């Protein structure tokens, strides 16, 4: 099989991994070596689904021992299979990198033969890239659950970032849909990696830097009946206990039609969108999962998560722009991290007016319901029921995501060959 064909197959198998970020490392360059990494990350292109291309995201192989129900690469699927040698992979990365197509490599694999064998192949490839090709660009490496911890630890010295996909939000769902994957085989290596990351960050003069850009994980949403309340609590625990850099969600899309354990319909993309909003509130806005919603509940589809929280906690509003604390401003729908900061600084020079907020591009169509400016309230409504109606009407644009969802729901012509991958 020629290289073009194999790249096509191995990209197809890798593309459902959501993460493509190249941020968090900021490794410098070295004379005689190729490349460096940018702390903020760099996007090199954008595909027709609007996602960024930053790394060469590819599988080393899609031959798989596992038979996870939701996965396109599962053993019982009749699809073309391929493999790349470490040398071929290195040549590809170096030549793409020198042409500025990519920021680095995101290498993953299906489980061929055994977890240990697969992990060894991955290590071999990145080691060759670092040592023989002297590559200092970004490497995101998947750890294979079930591989020896020593092997995963060894690999972490070559990667900027590693990830183990948690796959499903609860152990019950994992048992049901991916019976060959064990919870401990995912969680324990994550624990180990979080310690390596912590040491790399705190011991400045340690000889070996392990995963300077930390670790991430991903889970499928809507394949099991877990609630948003559960998912957000899990997310929070992952950030707090394992120092994760990011938690990614992917809305479930059906592909393996035969199983009665999986829903027949794809998950609404808006649900994924709302979970990301909640994730942002956890990481940058000082919210806790418990504040956002009860464990058995789901987020609202019709309004954004911050507005959802604000309406459920209307007793805190309205807040006065010229006196509210930074923390209180951050909780106002329509005011982000940047504008909260700017408001605090700018009001030292003189009282802010409604006009100045407009000029500073505060999203007033949301914020107006939750603030006063010099004592004056500018909103049209002052009760949560009407405000919710108004906000829902604003946010009810004919969204592309929804349109896209409908086509895949009702267009019978369309083959349902693509799904969420589970190749950890």
């Amino acid at each position: 099989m020629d290289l073009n064909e194999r790249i096509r197959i191995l990209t197809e198998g890798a593309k459902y991994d959501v993460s493509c970020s190249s941020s968090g490392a900021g490794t410098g360059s070295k004379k005689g070596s190729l490349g460096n990494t940018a702390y903020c990350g760099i996007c090199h292109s954008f595909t027709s689904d609007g996602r960024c291309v930053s790394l060469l995201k590819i599988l080393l192989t899609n031959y798989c021992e596992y038979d996870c129900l939701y996965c396109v690469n599962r053993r019982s699927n009749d699809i073309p299979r391929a493999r790349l040698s470490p040398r071929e992979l290195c040549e590809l990365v170096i030549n793409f990198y020198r042409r500025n197509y990519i920021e680095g490599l995101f290498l993953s694999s299906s489980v061929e033969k055994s977890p240990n064998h697969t992990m060894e192949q991955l290590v071999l490839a990145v080691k060759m890239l670092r040592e023989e090709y002297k590559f200092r660009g970004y490497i995101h490496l998947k750890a294979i659950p079930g591989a020896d911890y020593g092997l995963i630890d060894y690999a972490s010295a070559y990667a900027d970032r590693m990830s183990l996909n948690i796959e499903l939000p609860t152990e019950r769902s994992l048992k049901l849909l991916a019976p060959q994957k064990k919870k401990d085989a995912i969680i324990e290596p994550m624990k180990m990696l979080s310690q390596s990351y912590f040491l790399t960050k705190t011991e400045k003069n340690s000889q070996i830097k392990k995963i300077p850009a930390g670790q991430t994980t991903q889970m499928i949403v809507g394949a099991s009946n877990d609630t948003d309340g559960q998912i957000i609590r899990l997310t929070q625990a992952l950030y707090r206990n394992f120092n994760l850099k990011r938690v990614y969600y992917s809305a479930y899309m059906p592909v393996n039609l035969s199983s009665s354990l999986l829903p027949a319909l794809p998950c609404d993309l808006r649900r994924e969108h709302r979970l990301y909003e909640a994730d942002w509130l956890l990481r940058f806005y000082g919210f806790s999962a418990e504040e956002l919603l009860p464990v058995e509940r789901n987020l609202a589809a019709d309004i954004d998560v911050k507005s959802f929280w604000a309406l459920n906690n209307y007793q805190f509003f309205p807040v006065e722009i010229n006196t509210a604390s930074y923390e209180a401003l951050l909780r106002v729908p329509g005011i982000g991290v940047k504008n909260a900061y700017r408001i605090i600084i700018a009001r030292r020079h003189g009282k802010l007016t409604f006009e100045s907020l407009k000029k500073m591009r505060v999203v007033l169509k949301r914020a107006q319901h939750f603030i006063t400016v010099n004592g004056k309230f500018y909103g049209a409504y002052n009760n949560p029921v009407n405000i919710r109606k108004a906000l829902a009407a604003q946010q009810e644009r004919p969204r592309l995501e929804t349109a896209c969802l409908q086509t895949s729901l009702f267009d019978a012509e369309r083959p349902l060959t693509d799904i969420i991958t589970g190749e950890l």
Partner: protein
Amino acid sequence: MKILVVENNLAAFLTAVYHAYYGHKDAEKITSDAESVTMLDYGIRIETDTALAAKVREGIMKKAGKTAYKEIADAYLSGDKNKEQKLFDYLKLLFAQGKKALTLFSHSTVIAFRDMLNKVRREAHRMKGFIRFAQTENGVYYAFFGPDNDILELLLPHFRIRFNDQKFVLHDLKRKKMAYYDGDKSYTFTAPPRFTVALSEDQLKFAELWREYFNNVSIEERHNPVLQRHYAPKKYRWFMNEF
């Protein structure tokens, strides 16, 4: 209206600022666009004087700090037709109020300045990703592009550090400017009127593999060209070889 007309470079602009404070105190505008001066205006051509420009630079740094000066220098790279005027207004505010002007986030002049600066820096950041090099026969990597703002000098250090073992050319086709890095030092100059390169054999192969990758990494069920255009505007796609 009294207008100071200058060449299109930072030193020339700073010279004009000097004259606007000493000598032409009644000047209301500074521009490098001589054609924008109408019959009703009183245009004065200002010769660039690097010593005067240096004085103004020192003045800005003393008044508002080094970072503030760097911001002004970067904003000057803007492709905005009114850039001199926006910067002039901002400088007047800076000289009058000192560091306080840096954080007047609700002041129209400051907003106009910061918008201009952000556009320059955002485009420079974008180009770090969007620029595409092609390997030529003699092993030099060549890239052409055409940004809205004059950001060649902002990009050069990034690529020099990243590709320190690689000779390359960056070619701004809009401004007919070129930068060459020989593996040790870099040079910036006006591009020759005709410029052709012969590509290496490998170049076609890897460009083809890149397109193969790009076309297959997208998820069809999530097709969203509006979002794609938002992040990768059509105005840049002519120099990105995957489009």
